[in-house]
Every structure is written in C-alpha cells, then in structure tokens.
C-alpha cells in the first residue's frame, strides 16, 4: 500500500467531479418532490441522458451540445412518467420503476454503436491568473463549466423556492394539491413542468458521467447513482444546501474509495466498491427519524373530482 501516491490537491479537486452528477440529478428530483411527485425513474433518466449526451457529443464534436441533448433526452423520457402519473393516474412508485427499467433497456439499444468510442473533451474554464492561487486555484478553479453550472443551479433552486412566487406555488401544490387546485392553480400542468425539469437535470447528470467522469459509454454505467440521488434528497430533508453538502460528502467518499483502490490497499476491490452503497444505507438509517420535512402530498395521486 502506498498512500503517498495520493495527491491531496487532485484528491480534493476530484470531489467536485464525483459530486456533480449527483448534484444535478438530486436537485432536479428535489424540485419534483417539492411539488408532491415521487419519481423513482431518476436512474432511467440519467442513463438516457448519458447516452443522448454521449452520442450527440461524438457526432457533433461539441460536448456542450451533448449536454443540451442530454437535458432534452431526460426531459422527453420524463414526459412518459408525467403522462402515466398525471394523465393516466398510475401509481408513482410503479411508474418510476417502469421508467428505470425502460430507460436502461432503451439506452443500451441506442448505445450499441458507441461502445469503445472516445468522446470529445470539454475544456476547463479559464480563470486566468486566478487559477494560479496556491491550493484554492487547483482545487476550486480547475473545473469545466458544468461543475459551476451545478453549483449555480443549486443556488437558483434555493432562491426560487424560498423567495419567488413560482416557488410558493410549487410548494403549495406539493403540500396540499386539493387546496392548490381550489385556489385555481393547474396542479397537473405545474407537476408536469416540474417532472420535465427533473428529467432534464437527471439527463445532464447522466451525461456528466459518460462525457467527463468516465469518459466512455458502457451499458448500465450510471450504476445506481440515480438511486443514490433519491437517497440524497431524503438526506437533505428537501433543502438545497444540505443537498449540496451531502453530494460533496458522498463525492469525497467515492473519491477516497477509488484512490484507495488505486493505492492498492489490502481491502479487496469488491469491498471498497460496495462501500458507497453501504454508506448510503447507513446515512438513510440515521436520517430517517426526521420525516416532518417531506412534502405532505408526496406520492399521492391527484384527480380533480375527488
């Protein structure tokens, strides 16, 4: 074992890369759940985003176009979920599972000819001489645009939910859809838009895995990150900044695990690889006593007649 092989600055900078897919997927799901919808299809939307983004980036040569396509792909898939749960009034748990199963299959189908292809690289943002500040520069100012976009998104979601009229309406729909309906808000339309936003975010998160973190395409490559994002929303008690904190903690753990694998620690690789999932379970156990923060209408079906 050789821990000195781990460069502390690269190690901490890696937190951001490991956390970004989670941040996107989880912040999207947070908005969806705030409107009272539980979409368990995050994993499916992420993997569709991963392949849409990958394919577009390879074909056009532009990673940013890839991310845009990933957002569109995730949002389109989420429309299926919206149709099932909002129009056809189907059970949200079952519909979310269906979305994940379908997404995993469909992405494998789309991605057949992209196995082994290398995607174009997204350049890091150029901060000029600021990036040369010791420690701070290489850790914070050495990333691509999407990392900063993720941070901005969390701040924006927090501000919108807390300070704007839109945020108030979103939360009203999630807390009591019957009351919101009585006040004249279009519950189904608002929820559908939120679901699409969640889908777009999950798509971008997925594309970050296939375009930057790995970067290549393999079937089922999201490997449960969508589910961990769902756990992260619970961890954060539906609060954007706690979500950010959780994502970095988690990103740090993943990074540590990968570095330990690389450094050849005496623990077998398989046991290191299962640690993120075990830690997620442990965290869920510690936080599950605090249920008061969940939106009151979460997971309930809305029909105007009832």
């Amino acid at each position, binding site marked *: 074992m050789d821990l000195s092989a781990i460069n502390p600055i690269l190690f901490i900078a890696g937190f951001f890369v490991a956390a970004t897919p989670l941040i996107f997927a989880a912040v999207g799901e947070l908005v969806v759940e705030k409107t009272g919808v539980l979409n368990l299809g995050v994993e499916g939307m992420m993997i569709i985003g991963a392949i849409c983004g990958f394919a577009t980036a390879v074909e056009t040569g532009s990673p940013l176009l890839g991310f845009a396509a990933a957002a569109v792909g995730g949002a389109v898939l989420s429309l299926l979920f919206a149709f099932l749960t909002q129009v056809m009034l189907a059970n949200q748990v079952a519909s979310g599972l269906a979305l994940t199963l379908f997404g995993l299959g469909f992405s494998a189908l789309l991605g057949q000819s992209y196995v082994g292809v290398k995607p174009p690289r997204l350049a890091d943002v150029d901060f000029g001489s600021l990036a040369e500040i010791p420690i701070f520069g290489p850790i914070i100012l050495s990333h691509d645009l999407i990392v900063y976009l993720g941070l901005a998104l969390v701040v924006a979601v927090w501000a919108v939910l807390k300070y704007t009229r839109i945020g108030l309406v979103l939360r009203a729909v999630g807390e009591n859809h019957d009351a919101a309906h009585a006040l004249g808000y279009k519950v189904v339309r608002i929820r559908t838009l939120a679901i699409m936003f969640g889908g777009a975010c999950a798509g971008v998160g997925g594309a970050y895995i296939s375009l930057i973190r790995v970067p290549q395409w393999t079937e089922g490559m999201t490997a449960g990150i969508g589910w961990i994002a769902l756990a992260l929303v*619970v961890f954060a008690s539906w609060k954007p900044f706690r979500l950010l904190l959780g994502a970095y903690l988690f990103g740090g753990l993943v990074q540590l695990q990968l570095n330990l694998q690389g450094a050849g620690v005496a623990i077998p690789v398989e046991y290191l690889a299962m640690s993120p999932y075990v830690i997620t379970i442990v965290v869920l156990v510690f936080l599950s006593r605090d249920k008061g923060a969940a939106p009151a209408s979460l997971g309930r079906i809305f*029909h105007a007649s009832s």
Partner: protein
Amino acid sequence: MIALEKRPEPSRTFSLAAPLLAVLATMLFGGLLFALLGKDPLEAIRTIFWEPLFGEFAFFYRPQLLIKGAPLVLIAIGLSLGFKAGIWNIGAEGQYIMGALFGAGVGLAFYPMESVFIFPLMVLAGAFGGWIWAMIPAVLKVKFGTNEILVSLMLVYVAEQFLASMSLGLMKNPEGFGFPGSRNLQQYASAHNAELITGSGMHWGVVAAFIAVIFGYVLLARHRLGFAIRVTGDAPRAAAFSGVNPARLVLFCLGMSGLLAGLAGVFEVSGPAGQVTIDFNVGYGFTAIIVAFLGRLNPVGILLAGGLMALTYIGGDIAQSKLGLPAAAIQVFQGMLLFFLLAFDLFTNYRLRLGRTEVA
C-alpha cells in the same frame, strides 16, 4: 370534451382486460420499434411469440419456458404480497444473488462428499440467504422508519459485489485453471438440481414455483394474514383500526419475498446455471417486478404473466440469433409492457365520459 369519472366500483372486466390490451399495445409499438431497427416487424413478433411454442424447434424451447418462468414466478409471488400492502421490495435481484451464494456455498463446502441431505440443506441455506438479505430493509424500516425502496435497491449493488468477490475468491474452482467461477454443481450429483423428468425442463424450482402460486392463493384468499395485506393496501387507516400490526406485516412481506427470491437463486445456481460466476444473475429480480404487475398481483395472474415473460426471453434469444435483433430491444419490449399496463389500468378505476362536464 372528454372527462374522467371515477367508477363507483373498480371494473372487474377491465381489471382482466388491461393486461391483454397492454400485451397487444406492446406488440404494436414493439413491432414499430423493430421496424425502425430495420427488421421485419411481423417476422420479429412471430419469432418471439410463436416460434418457441409451435415452431420447428419447439420441442427444444418448450422446456425452456419452465426453466425461465419458474424463477420469475417464484420471485413475483413474493413481491406481490408486499406490493399489495404498499411495501416495496425492489431488491429481489440482490436477494436472488444471496440465495444462490448461500446455497452454492453449502454445496461447495460438502464437496466431494455424496449424500441425499446435501441438496435439501442447500435449499434451506438459499432460502435463508434471501430471507436475511430482505430482513435488512425490513428491520431498518420497522426500527428506524428507513425507506425500504432505497435500502433494498442499494443492497442489490452490494450483493453484486459480493458475487464478484466470491466467484473470484472464496468460491473459485481450485481446479478451474484460474478462470473465475465456482465448481460446476451440475457435475456434483448430490448438489445438482437435475431435471425430474429428462427433457421436460421440470426441476425442483419449477415445483417450488407451482407450490408458491398455491400458497399465495390460499394466503390471500383464505388466511387472516392475507386479509391484513389486502386491507393495508386498500385502506391503511382502516387496517390499523382492525388490529393489523404494520411492523409484523412489513417483516412478513419483505421476509417472504426475500425467501422466495433466495429459493429462486439456489435452484438456478444448482440447476440451469450450474456455477457461481460474476454475471450469473440475469435480472430476473427486476423482470419479476413487471411479472407481478402484469399478473395483477394475483397468484394465478402471475403464473400466466411469468409464462408470457419467459416467452419473450426465449423468443428474444431466437430473434437475436435468427434476425440479429439486439438483446436490448427485448429489454425495451419488456419495459414497454409495464408502461402500457400502468396506463391501461386507469380504466379499471375510472371511465371516460364524453360531453360537457361542469367545473368540479
């Protein structure tokens, strides 16, 4: 203007018609998908649904129907109990793996001893392995209120890593020339889950699946516990008033579904699969979710749905080799089925009304 109106009673007719409509819609849209992939849609559908049953080589494929259907039915029966009560075990894949590992572990520990007791012991160990893996989310839910959906799903990934570790390490065949994977249990008579009638596909797992269907039917239709499950699903508050203990129900439903998934795992690893390998699991635990819903969470329905889903697996394999249809296309096909089912289910509880409706 078309409006939805809640039916006073769920429609029995539509409850039965929805799965059939879903299958038809899936054939239609699946055919469209196959056409987009450049395959003849009619030929593809015929290959998937007709070839395994009545085609030239049907004698070879029909036994496969039992082999592929049994684990699906076994797992789906367990899942349906929980789903009915609103307890969501979606980690059956993990419980299936652990059942296989526990069962195979016991078998391999006895190698090369021969005894009639080894196989029954393996089955017990497999059931225990699945059960204990499902008890993790169950106990956490009961003790701490942890979400069972997320915990059971996370445990699938943990189980997959265990499987990798076992097939590369502890259970690796010492005479396997360094290849990953355990000894082949098919070549170890006392541990082999052999066909009961040669060439029929009938092995102990198939027997267990049929018993599970009967067990599920009796439990739900005749037993007090089945009543508790149904009431909890329909009206949790009423269930609490009628003296249902929700904690016990969670432990029972998750435990039972884990146990059945574990059984499916041990029967598979000691029979059709033969050995513990890294990718020995093929997603039965997830497909069983579709089977449970397609079968309307009803034991008899699940038996039929399991058969249909097995058919798509086998037909999909044939279509893959004969028509070059990608394996993922079948996965999409199966996912579509669940989509359409959930969509058509609307008409079980609601009906369409044409004409003007006043504002609610």
